[in-house]
């Protein structure tokens, strides 16, 4: 049971993130929601690689006889984090520009493209 807690956390993080993106009207909060979803997915990937009583997957220490966690999900997570940083930086800088133009971050007040 205790090993299922991370999966519960994954689902909770993704749902909270989706809720934030859908129902919050502030652009910064929407970005926070996206990062929450991202953390959820990253946590899922990391959890997949975990093995009970495992050690860090380092090449030279593989002779100690103990189990290693899977390194590939960790590599995937790292890539995902790097992409997440780029996305976050881009979105925040776009939001800076939006704030300059409209003077607000409320999505209902920003006049973009409708209809």
């Amino acid at each position, binding site marked *: 049971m205790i090993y299922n807690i991370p999966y519960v956390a994954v689902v909770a993080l993704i749902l909270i993130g989706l809720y934030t993106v859908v129902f919050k009207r502030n652009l910064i909060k929407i970005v926070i929601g996206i990062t929450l979803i991202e953390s959820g997915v990253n946590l899922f990937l990391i959890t997949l690689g975990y093995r009970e009583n495992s050690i*860090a997957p*380092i*090449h030279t220490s593989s002779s100690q006889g103990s189990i290693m966690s899977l390194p590939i999900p960790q590599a995937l997570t*790292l890539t995902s984090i790097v992409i997440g*940083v780029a996305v976050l930086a881009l979105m*925040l*800088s776009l939001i*800076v520009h939006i704030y300059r133009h409209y003077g607000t971050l409320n999505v209902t007040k920003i006049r973009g493209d409708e209809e």
Partner: protein
Amino acid sequence: MSGMSKIVKTITNIAFPFIIIYGLYIIAHGHLTPGGGFQGGAVVASGLAMIVVAYGSIWTIGKVKEKHLSVFESIGALGFISLAFLGLIFGTMFFNNYLVKNDILFGKDAIIGGTVNFNSAGIIPLMNFAVGLKVIAGLFAIVLIMAYATSRKEAVK
């Protein structure tokens, strides 16, 4: 963003070298221990971001030009991609690790259970250096420009 109080500046001055050294260590040992170009670069960039916070973005942008940062970033990316291209020329495939088992540079084979040998893993440490350079320049540029852009807004108000 203007600078913060003298206490913050002093603590920053003390902590800054340690953070930079730690980040560079993570970059350099990326092929041996958990870590690598991105992680170490992020540590170094956070150290630099601390400077931005303590001294203010306007002071910092007077010291570091954004253009130079983007050149460093390009060099980092170019180094990465050209190492991959060299794999095509000297090795068999794109991204081929042609330096490994070559005994020239980073050419030693990492022995399982043996002592940690810095001189191993072929092009991976070189790629880590390139990525590290790119991440340091890139992340610092992002933090600096965003801080500068928002501080200019404050100044206008």
